[in-house]
């Protein structure tokens, strides 16, 4: 049986990200995770919205779709539900996901659509050259917060837990080994898996962002039990530390399993020929 290596997951073009951008680490971790899982590139689709981070699909040797800003989850949900045999990975940024795309996460999560959603969170709008995002810390000055940001930050992990996502994790792009492991677990998870990546924007948040993430983050000890949503919610308060690893995980039926049930029920009512459907209009 054919064996896939990292290069099978690479496309012909090179990233245009700034030197030092955190997204390089995410890309490499994703390559490695796919290799680890030995997923056939032709049965894998990596889809995105718009942003620096959303350029990632262009660097994949799998099927890829660089869609529109904020709509990657419906796009990916459509692709997955239309053909559940595909492995579908949605990627994007904090602006793409938490600002303009914020309305879609809760529904992909509660329906438990079997896709993986990787958000490269640099707490800034990179592609548009440095405006505040929902995760930009208070007080930070950006192109749109000249006098300091006054918008309290959005807490992705706590929110995803409240949304009943069945797999919620956080990684740091600089730690490729750990990131590879978690991304692989997320993809392997049956159901909606969410991975927030601390992925620095060296250009608009400065190299300091690496130090900031390094200081604040730590890898979750094995002793931690991710199966209780209240404990997980408590754990994920964003005031002091940033936990790295699987913060919450609880399995339940996926949406494709549920819709298969629906099809069975529908068929049990009888399956006429397409022309036979005319009977429904008889008087």
């Amino acid at each position: 049986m054919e064996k896939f290596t990292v290069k099978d997951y690479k496309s012909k073009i090179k990233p245009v990200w700034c030197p030092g951008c955190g997204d390089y680490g995410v890309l490499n971790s994703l390559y490695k995770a796919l290799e680890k899982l030995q997923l056939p590139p032709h049965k894998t689709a990596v889809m995105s919205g718009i942003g620096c981070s959303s350029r990632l699909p262009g660097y994949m040797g799998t099927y890829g779709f660089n869609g529109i800003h904020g709509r990657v989850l419906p796009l990916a949900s459509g692709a997955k539900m239309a053909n559940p045999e595909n492995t579908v990975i949605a990627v994007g940024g904090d602006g793409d996901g938490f600002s303009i795309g914020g309305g879609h996460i809760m529904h992909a999560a509660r329906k438990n659509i079997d896709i993986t959603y990787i958000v490269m969170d640099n707490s800034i709008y990179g592609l548009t050259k440095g405006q505040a995002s929902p995760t930009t810390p208070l007080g930070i000055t950006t192109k749109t917060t000249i006098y300091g940001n006054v918008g309290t930050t959005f807490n992705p992990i706590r929110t995803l837990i409240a949304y009943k996502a069945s797999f919620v994790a956080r990684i740091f792009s600089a730690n490729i080994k750990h990131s590879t492991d978690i991304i692989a677990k997320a993809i392997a998870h049956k159901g909606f898996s969410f991975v927030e990546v601390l992925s620095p924007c060296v250009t608009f948040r400065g190299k300091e962002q690496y130090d900031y993430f390094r200081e604040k983050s730590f890898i979750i000890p094995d002793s931690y039990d991710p199966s209780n949503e209240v404990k997980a919610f408590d754990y994920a308060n964003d005031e002091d530390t940033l936990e790295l690893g699987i913060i919450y995980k609880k399995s339940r039926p996926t949406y494709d399993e549920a819709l298969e049930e629906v099809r069975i029920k529908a068929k049990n009512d009888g399956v006429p020929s397409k022309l036979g459907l005319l009977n429904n209009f008889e008087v």
Partner: protein
Amino acid sequence: MSRNNIVIGIAGSGGDGIITAGDLLMKSASKDGLFVFMLKSYGPQIRGGESSIKLRMSQNPVATQGDKLDILVVLNWKDFPRFKLELLLEDEVVIISDSADKFPEEDIPIDKNKMKKWYKIPIAKIAKEASGTTQSKNIVMLGIISELFNLPKETLKKSIKKKFDRKGQKVVDTNINAINAGQNYVINSLEKIDDLVFEYKKNDPRIVMDGNEAIAYGAVYAGLEYFAGYPITPSSEIMQWIAKFLPKYGGTVMQMEDELASINAVIGASFAGKKSMTATSGAGISLMNEGIGLASMTELPAVIVNVQRGGPSTGLPTKTEQADLMQAIWGSHGDSPRVVLAPADVEDCFDTTILAFYIAEKYQMPVIILSDGFIGHRKESINPERIKSKKSGFKKINRRQTPNEEELKDYKRFKYTKTGISPIAYPGIKGGEHQTAGIEHDEYGFPSSDVDIHHKMTFKRYAKYDAIKKEFDFKRFYGDEDAEIGIIAWGSTKGAVKEAVKKAQENGIKIHAIIPQIIYPFLTKSFKEFLKKKKKVIVVEMAYSGPFVRYLRGFVDFGKYNVKIYPYRIPGGAPFTVEEILEQITEVVKK
């Protein structure tokens, strides 16, 4: 005077069972093979509000629900005024009402001389006596009018049985008693003061559909595999029908969180290789403009149904209008090609939907079906044989072209071709891995901001229009080709125009009508043929801003053909009457 073509209106309060009565009448007439149209109308309440139906039955083919009522039935006078525009009256109209229902003289908008033939009947009382409840007064009423005007009687009882069967024999009996009581009342205690009698020959039973059902069925028939949508009046029934039947064939239906999600889910499913569709209206279509542009750019097949309603904004959700035409063509930012089709009646909703999938899959672009609330909710009796016979008649309902061995060696998803069509690979096809993007891209699909490439790709995306213009021609014409007076309309306006043309011809006016089904791209060649002999052309549309006439003039230099245009553009709300179109024709003739 005996007639084989009759228009009936019924109005009443929530509890009166107006809609049920209308449905039963519609079904019985269809069972007898008549041509039947029915429109329903409601007040603002979701429940318990007043409602009315308008129904036309005819021995011979007809194209509209008819302008004015030959028969008006009112179960509750206080509800009538709201429907005065839906229920216009013939001078010779026969009125039937409940003698117990006090008539509020002043505020009823009917002029005296139309009240000459008026039956006041104790409908509720008869019901109470016959079935122990006044609830069945709508059925008693059916008994009365079926007997009084010789409407289908046997089939009416059959329909009643069929309808109440699952509620048990007792309920069936109550209703049969009710209808008998109504009929007996006419036979024994009523003296006919009018000479209106409906006479017809039975024919093969017809089926009953509305436009939304016809679109839903057409889609499933065309091989729909994935549907994503969000409810909105007056389009919701499309998703509801598909949600019931598509799963039987292994298809997928998803109610999304909004229309942005719906259109993007549809594009994602199309990317995955499936025949995909969404349906919406009003505000929903405005929200899809961005996504439709993405489908244009990624050259992915997608069928988008817009059942137009009154606008702007939330507007008139339950009323019809044709003001979304220009938006369908130009609604997305950038040069964003798409195809726009318009069905003209219920059966045409079925045909148009199948054509939409054919074009979307073959030409790899979004196809918008512009229906409207009028045909979307209008019930028509249809000859099932015609739908069966179409089976072969339709263009092969094909799938998008996929790349062959050779092409997969160095696969270019967006390869430049003469027709602009390049084979699509989708996940699962080995060697077809590629990037698709809403950002401008090269033949492989990789992002590019190169100006040359943008020009070439724009030409590629628009080249498809030339191919489409070659493949199709206008087909729907009425009247005499060599007339100097022409009339052009689109969509649900067809019915009124078709009958007006017939009447005009009867009045000795030479006139020629065209109702395009393919609206955009504009089939210029075909249309110039139409213009050849014309000197005057009336453009009819239900939109005050005149999108249709602006659109036509934008693509056809009428002046060059020495054709003078007479736009007839009015805001929406109520369907056109045959009479008002005929008036336009007669006036233009004089000019």
